[in-house]
């Protein structure tokens, strides 16, 4: 009887380990209109947004990749993105959305600049904030409009230690990002392409 129990426990542990190993060796995200390569050590927590990955736990750092219809309303601002927008205008709406979120405290934009993501003209915003418990976070947010979609990649981490620790990984993820079904943006976002 003891042997059977020991065997069952072993089996349980082995299958559990395999499951964890699979999660932690995540190489790609579920199919969408983009592809991205995930560096070693990043994994996708269960029951969290399917495009969110982390290394040490979502509270310490995460990368979130989203493709969102541009006419989808935001939660905190009634403003909407549109295809004719300049990256600067799109960045303004994202800033307004975040700043209007009552859970985001001591919000401060450090940098707001043009950026190129997979050849698309977009923007990058670097900002800091605190949550209601007083924990400080830093976020690097890239975004661009392509066709009727707004793509964004953000790296959020605890300001102390974690942000600097994994920023290189995020840059690697960012440079691997590709729109799989490219749609020409009506917005002639020539500004960033010129850089």
């Amino acid at each position, binding site marked *: 009887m003891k042997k059977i129990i020991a065997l069952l426990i072993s089996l349980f542990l082995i299958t559990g380990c395999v499951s964890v190993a699979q999660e932690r060796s995540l190489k790609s995200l579920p199919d969408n209109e983009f592809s991205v390569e995930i560096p070693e050590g990043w994994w996708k927590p269960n029951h969290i947004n399917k495009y969110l990955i982390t290394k040490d736990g979502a509270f310490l750092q995460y990368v979130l990749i989203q493709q969102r219809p541009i006419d989808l309303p935001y939660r905190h*601002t009634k*403003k909407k993105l549109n295809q*004719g927008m*300049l990256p*600067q205008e799109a960045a303004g709406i994202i800033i307004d959305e975040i700043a209007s979120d009552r859970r985001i*405290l001591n*919000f401060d*934009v450090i940098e*707001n600049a043009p950026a190129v993501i997979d050849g698309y003209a977009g923007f990058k915003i670097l900002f800091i904030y*605190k949550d209601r418990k007083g924990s400080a976070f830093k976020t690097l947010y890239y975004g661009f409009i392509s066709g009727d979609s707004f793509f964004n990649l953000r790296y959020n981490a605890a300001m102390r230690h974690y942000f600097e620790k994994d920023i290189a990984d995020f840059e690697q993820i960012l440079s691997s990002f590709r729109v799989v079904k490219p749609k020409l943006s009506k917005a002639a976002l020539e500004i960033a392409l010129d850089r």
Partner: protein
Amino acid sequence: MKYLALSMVAWCLVAGCATPRPIPVTRTLTANEEEQMLWRQAQEELNAINASGVLYQDVEIENYLNRIAAKLHANSISPDFSFQIKVVKDPSLNAFAFPNGVIYIHSGILARMDNEAQLAALLAHEMVHCTHRHSLRVLRSIKDRTAAKNARPPRVRELAQLLGITGSIAPLSGYTRELETEADRIGLDLAVKANYDPREILNLFELLKQEIELEGVKEPYFFGTHPKVGQRIENVKNWLAEKYRGKITGTKNTDVFQSKISRLVLDNARLDLRQGRFFVAQRTVEKFLAVKQDDARAYFLLGEIFRQRGRQDDAAAAIKNYEKSISLNPSFPEPHKAMGLIHYKDGEKRLAKKYFESCLLLSPDTIDRAYIQGYLRLCVTNGEG
């Protein structure tokens, strides 16, 4: 989320309560164990609010609000109670009082008001929640209710653990109908005794009711809990007809009020714009401009409202307001940048270049200078330089 959940738990308990047990209110404030616990909890939450960056920092406005509170408090039943009024940067229509006399007013509700009499009515209402110890009465109701279910009445500490945020359950989740009505009735009396026109509370109710309907928002706590705003309007009308018939005089202090809060009105319009509430923002700026007709920032903001709304003819309206702003204050960089953007998107690179250059000249370190430098490069490479 935790706060929301706890508030909901608290609300369910509060809403289900019978009339809160009356507390003898005396001129001297003697805090018992329950009250001391409420105040400690309130202080913890106040510390969190004060450190969160949500407070509107303007000493002049705070002093003004505190002076009005002192005037109202002169006829209060608890003269030894100490009040402190603060403003929260939030465009929603709300105000709430903590049991220890700290009252927060949202910038949104202040910006919508027309005069000091309306402000006095709001402050008096919130002050009555404190002087008549409504939080304590809510706490005791919960205690009685829990005791009725269990053999042993819960201790204060257990209640605190149960609710988590006992110090603020009442201000954040609303009081019972009886307590809100009491605050309206006694608050009205305080305003009358301080020589304010009591009819102004009706105008405030009506103004906010219209806005709630216009925006389709859920009614805020101050105007939306028990009883509903319509019932409160009826109550005030009845009191005015019965108790104050033939005695309604008092001041509105419109000019003083508008001059004191003018900066806040504009700052709040910016918050409305941030949330995409274009109509409310536009109305607020126009209200401001009716009083201060030569404010470059107000014209710029009006221009921003039109530009960001982007309806037909909005670009022309935006340009008109930016030009007015520049004419009033040529060294204000923001309308230059906005003019540059409008012309850039219109393909008028020469005009865009002119405005972008003047913007960078006036504000070389503007946070979005990287965008502007990019636009300028393109204006040149496109042969428009």
